[in-house]
Each structure stands twice: as C-alpha cells, then as structure tokens.
C-alpha cells in the first residue's frame, strides 16, 4: 500500500473524460424516454431509463427525427461525458424510436404537427401530367419496387424518359439520401415532369424513412409534382400524405401515371371510325342541301315560265284591243289623203280626192263640202 493518489476535482474530471474517450468514445443505448424537453427551440434534454437505472442526455433539435415524447422506446447514439459542473451525460448524435409502438407514436406526433402546418391539405395537391414524358424515379435500383414499376410502365406505355435517382430506401442513410435525391431532381436544368418515390412494403422500421420529417418536408416542398407509393395497400407513410398523389404500390404508381397502351390503341381505332362517320354525315348533309337547292331551282324556273306565259297572254289581249281592223269591222272607216291618215276635217280642202278604208276594201271619194264643229265653213 503506497500513498493514495489524490486528484484535484478538475483533474479528476479530465482524467475520467480521457478514460471514457479511450474506452467508450461512442455508445448506443436503448431505453425509455423520460423528462424530454426542448429549450429555446434548440437544445434537447432528456433521460433514458429502464427498471433500475436512469441516464441523462443532451443534444440539439437538428438530430431529432421528428417530435418525440416520454414513454417511447428509443435508441440513442452519442459520446459519454462528465461535465465539470452539471455531471454525467451523453451528448446525443442521433436518436431513433424503436419498435412498432414507439415508431407509430412518433409518426402520429409528426403527422399531427405537419397536418397543423397544412402540409397534407387537399388544396396543395397539384395534378400530375398524364401521361408524363419524363419521370424522376427515386428508389433503390436493385429493389423489387424498381423492377415492378419499370415492368408495369413498359407494359402500359412507351416513350417515357426515366431518370433514376439511386437511394437507399431503409436504414440510417435513407432519409438524407431521399432528401438529396429530391433536391437533385428539382435542381436539374430540365427537371422531370413528375417525381416518383417508391419502395415495397416492410416492417414499420423498414418504412420509417418515408415518415421522416426531413423527407416529408422535402416531398411537400418539391417544385416537381410528386407521387409517393410505399409498400402494400395497408402501409401509409407521411411522405404519401404530403405527396401530390399517393399510390398504393410501385405497380400502382406506374398505373396511375400512364394509360394502358392497348386501351388507347382501341380508342384510336374507334376515333378513326368516328371521323369517317362524321365526314359521311357532313357529306350526306351537303348532298341533301344540294337536292333541296335543285328542287328550289326547278320550281323557280317553272314559276318564271308560268309568269311569262301570263304576261304574253295579257299583252296579246291588249294588242287585240288596239287592233284597228276590229274597228273597221264594226263599221268605222279610216280616211286617207294621199299617204296621210286624216284626223282633222280642217286638214282636208274641199275638192280633194280622199281614200276611205273599210274592212273589206277602199273607196275613193271627192270632198264636196265641209263644216267644222266651230261652225266655220271653207
């Protein structure tokens, strides 16, 4: 037994921290969250406990996956430290809810918060182009989701350009990669017309990235309209609620985006028939109009003939009324002096030889006397 080693307080804290840094620089601890609180919108304080023990943690809100509350089981990674004044705590680097219950509760809290901000409102939803010419596909290239989406799309439609953004769709890297992919697609000089985020079904843990706050916000903020299709029918992630449209599965996403080529080809055939029928109708209508015009023309001509005939008849009657031979037949005579028709007694001198024209011949006579109506005598 030698002299006991005596430390100053600060020296001991420093030695203990050095020892911790050497032995356990980074630890991951799982436990129940308690005394969770956020100070000045920036600092996060909480305890993790189990049946026997409790540990203090400290960190920033930037490391939170979303809202958390006491009672959740979480897994926290960070650096253990002995603070010179406040004692032992773990500096939190990341925290994730663990297990179905905690994940669901965390998702519910985040859903309530984002819903209150209006991220899921129906009037934010934009229509997707139908069919799109260029699709941005955000998923893992090796996944069944990728294969399903491509298979259905190819079977239904042609002539779509797919820009594939490779990301993890589960695990710790997934949220940041999904956010980066959405940003990259939006930043393209010619962005795709629609962004599809998709993956197949899985456990709540597997799908957690699509309910991550940063991912949900990136989906909601995307300038390119979004279609999010996660898992099987029953799984609904928050990213789907924030998307412009939700698909139930990767295959369903492809179906929502494109018409079925066979159906469209069939309809084109019908439209060809329609065009022929419509043109036929126009021609028939014009032919009917022509026939009607022809009848109208014929009737007009007939009527014109009839009118002309009546006019001629009338003229003939008029002409006959003025025919001088008719007057002669009634006993009148025309008196000629030389080749002049005599209309006034004054024009004929006594002794003149005149011709009297009657209906059946001409008499020549000599004027022996004349008396005018005014009583004057020659």
């Amino acid at each position, binding site marked *: 037994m030698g002299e006991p080693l005596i430390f100053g307080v600060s020296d001991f804290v420093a030695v203990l921290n050095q020892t911790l840094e050497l032995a356990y620089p980074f630890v991951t601890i799982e436990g129940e969250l308690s005394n969770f609180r956020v100070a000045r919108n920036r600092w996060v304080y909480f305890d993790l406990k189990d049946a026997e023990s409790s540990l203090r943690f400290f960190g920033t809100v930037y490391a939170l996956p979303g809202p958390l509350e006491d009672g959740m089981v979480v897994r926290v990674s960070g650096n253990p430290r002995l603070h010179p004044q406040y004692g032992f705590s773990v500096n939190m680097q990341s925290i994730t809810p663990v297990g179905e219950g905690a994940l669901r509760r965390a998702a519910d809290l985040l859903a309530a918060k984002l819903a209150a901000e209006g991220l899921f409102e129906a009037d934010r939803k934009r229509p997707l182009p139908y069919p799109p010419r260029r699709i941005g596909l955000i998923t893992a290239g090796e996944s069944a989701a990728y294969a399903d989406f491509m298979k259905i799309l190819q079977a239904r439609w042609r*002539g779509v350009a797919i820009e594939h953004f490779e990301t993890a769709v589960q695990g710790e890297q997934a949220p940041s990669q999904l956010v980066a992919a959405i940003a990259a697609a939006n930043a393209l000089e010619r962005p795709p017309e629609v962004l599809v985020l998709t993956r197949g079904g899985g456990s709540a843990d597997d799908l957690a990235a699509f309910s991550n706050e940063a991912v949900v916000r990136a989906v909601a903020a995307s300038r390119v309209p979004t279609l999010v299709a996660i898992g099987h029918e029953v799984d609904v992630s928050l990213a789907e609620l924030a998307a412009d449209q939700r698909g139930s599965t990767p295959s369903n996403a492809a179906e929502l985006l494109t018409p079925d080529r066979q159906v469209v080809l069939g309809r084109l055939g019908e439209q060809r028939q329609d065009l022929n029928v419509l*043109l036929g109708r126009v021609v028939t209508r014009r032919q009917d109009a022509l026939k009607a015009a022809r009848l109208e023309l014929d009737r007009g001509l007939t009527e014109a003939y009839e009118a002309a005939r009546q006019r001629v008849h009338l003229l003939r009657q008029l002409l006959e009324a003025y025919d001088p031979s008719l007057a002669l037949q009634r006993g009148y005579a025309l008196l000629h002096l030389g080749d002049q028709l005599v209309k006034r007694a004054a024009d004929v001198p006594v002794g003149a030889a005149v011709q009297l024209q009657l209906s059946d011949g001409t008499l020549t006579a000599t004027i022996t006397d004349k008396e005018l109506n005014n009583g004057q005598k020659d």
Partner: protein
Amino acid sequence: MAKKTDAFDYRAKSEELERIVAELQNPDIHIDEATQLHTAGVKLIAELEAYLNQAEIEIKKHVA
C-alpha cells in the same frame, strides 16, 4: 443526343385530335373544311398509333 422521345408531343397531338372530332360535329361546317379536318385526323391517328407501337422507354441513371 437522342431526343426522339421528346420530339413527339403525345398529349398535344391527342388534344388536337379531340378538337378535330369536335369541329367535325359542328352541323354548319363547310365541306372543304370537313375534308381537310378528316385528313388531318386520320394522319394524327396514324402518328399516335405509330408512337404507341414504336417509342421505347429511355432510362438515365443518376446517383444522388
């Protein structure tokens, strides 16, 4: 640069066809115009069919 899939605007051509059909239904349409529209409609249908049969899906990879 392969831009063949972008050059054909399916949506625009499809809308044009709908417009032609609607115009042909106008009872006052002139026969000359109807004939022209019919020709244009038949041509559009052939183009759309060819597009649907021939175009291919083009894939570009981005690693985000």
